[in-house]
């Protein structure tokens, strides 16, 4: 064998392929692609990268949308073999038909982790090829419309789902979630179209939502251990006096006919940590806290962020009342504070 050209100290070119992949996937895509020019051995090492992450590090200043799209086509054209993770998260990217072509190419790659963040303009309707991503474990999507075909049987391996400003037709949304039997984490942010959501997810451990909801009912969530709720009112007119309007929070609990049922549901018995933000101390909220404390036998910690300072008499009385509620869990720690966390 002719070996005299090989430098003995060149170790990096002769690493096992999985080690090379591990190194390349830790590089920004631009750096990984540039390794192609090191030597002949390196020319096509990057094309089997197991992860493609297209984010702000991918682009240079001065690139316009057309350039960005051309580069994405180029990368997808060269890439060979399966792809565990694909991320497109570039701030000013808007809905366009090219996206459907990319998703078509990606549909052959057995993707497990798919992140797709669009911004501005219209929501993008996800093309039908997407529903053949049967290996998905993680799905994180912003500004898209899902219209699954009637033949869609769910993502049977999906574990984590994050939707931001996503729309699904009303008849499909409950089905979409209930047809992902392994789902453990569900987060819905600004998904106004998800009002009146019924959640049927036997393995769900975490449920978070941020935004406006008419009602959410937990139909079958026996493993649920953590809920994070932030309800925001975008529409409350400023001139309306505060006392006369219920906060969205109160509306949320009023609109939950299932409060009485919820405490019977085994799911709440499993709650370990609860965080409540924008608490105002209104009766339905107090009742809700009382119910949670009374029925959550394994509760470890409940943090209540009050929306105002509580230095006055009223605030003091409220805290006193809260701390007097009987707790089913002897370990339960109750923290009441006025420093509302951001985010």
């Amino acid at each position, binding site marked *: 064998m002719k070996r005299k050209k090989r430098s003995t100290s060149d170790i990096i070119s002769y690493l096992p392929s999985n080690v090379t992949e591990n*190194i390349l996937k830790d*590089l920004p895509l631009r750096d990984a692609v540039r390794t192609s020019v090191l030597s002949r051995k390196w020319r096509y090492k990057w094309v089997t990268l197991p992860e493609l992450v297209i984010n702000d590090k991918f682009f240079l200043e001065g690139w316009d949308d057309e350039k960005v799209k051309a580069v994405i086509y180029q990368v997808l054209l060269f890439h060979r073999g399966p792809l565990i993770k694909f991320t497109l998260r570039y701030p000013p990217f808007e809905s366009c038909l090219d996206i459907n072509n990319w998703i078509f190419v990606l549909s052959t790659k057995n993707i497990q982790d798919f992140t797709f963040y669009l911004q501005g303009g219209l929501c993008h309707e996800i093309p039908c090829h997407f529903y053949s991503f049967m290996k998905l474990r993680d799905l994180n999507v912003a500004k898209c419309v899902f219209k699954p075909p009637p033949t869609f049987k769910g993502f049977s391996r999906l574990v984590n789902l994050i939707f931001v400003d996503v729309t699904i037709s009303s008849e499909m949304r409950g089905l979409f979630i209930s047809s992902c039997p392994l789902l453990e984490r569900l987060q819905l942010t600004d998904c106004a179209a998800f009002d009146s959501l019924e959640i049927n997810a036997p393995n769900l451990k975490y449920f978070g939502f941020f935004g406006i909801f008419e009602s959410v009912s937990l139909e079958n969530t026996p493993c649920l251990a953590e809920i994070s709720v932030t309800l925001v009112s975008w529409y409350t007119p400023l001139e309306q006096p505060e006392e006369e309007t219920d906060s969205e929070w109160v509306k949320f609990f009023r609109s939950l006919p299932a409060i009485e049922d919820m405490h019977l549901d085994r799911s709440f018995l499993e709650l370990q940590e609860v965080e409540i933000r924008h608490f105002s101390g209104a009766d339905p909220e107090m009742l809700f806290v009382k119910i949670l404390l009374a029925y959550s036998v394994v509760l470890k910690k409940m943090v209540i962020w009050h929306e105002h300072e509580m230095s006055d008499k009223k605030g003091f009385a409220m805290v006193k009342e809260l701390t007097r509620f009987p707790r089913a869990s002897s370990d339960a720690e109750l923290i009441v504070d006025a420093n509302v966390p951001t985010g």
Partner: protein
Amino acid sequence: MASSIENNNEKLTLKSSDGEEFLVEKHVALQSTLLQNMLDSDCSSADVIPLPKIDARTLALVLGYCKKHADASSSKQGELNSFDSEFLKDMDMGALFNLVLAANFMEIKGLLDIAAQKIADTIKDKPHQEVREIFHVENDYTPEEEAAVREENRWAFEGFP
């Protein structure tokens, strides 16, 4: 004969390529998927497990990493993270490659990941000429071929010499 390991105060002996023996507690050895599989399948019939690809200096480093990670409780993630970054600091390239190959052979994912990340950090943001020098990669392209490869991926070379 796997029981001999259990009788021996839950310890086993690893032998490096240069013949040095290391007595290792079993829970430390379990950080390595390779050793775990060997113990599970009872195939470590010998009292000494030879690791013919790993020299003593590298094996000592690997076992230091395994011990720290085996002994730390899960609540001390922050402490482990600072241990990890200190662990590879100032390590020369030769030692780093020995370590990444050992971690790959012994299937110690955490160590493989941090060593690969360290190598990637060395490549990142550098022009390819410099990367060739650091890693002693010989450029066997003809000037025409090299120009063609650059042209093929022109977008990635923008802003680089």
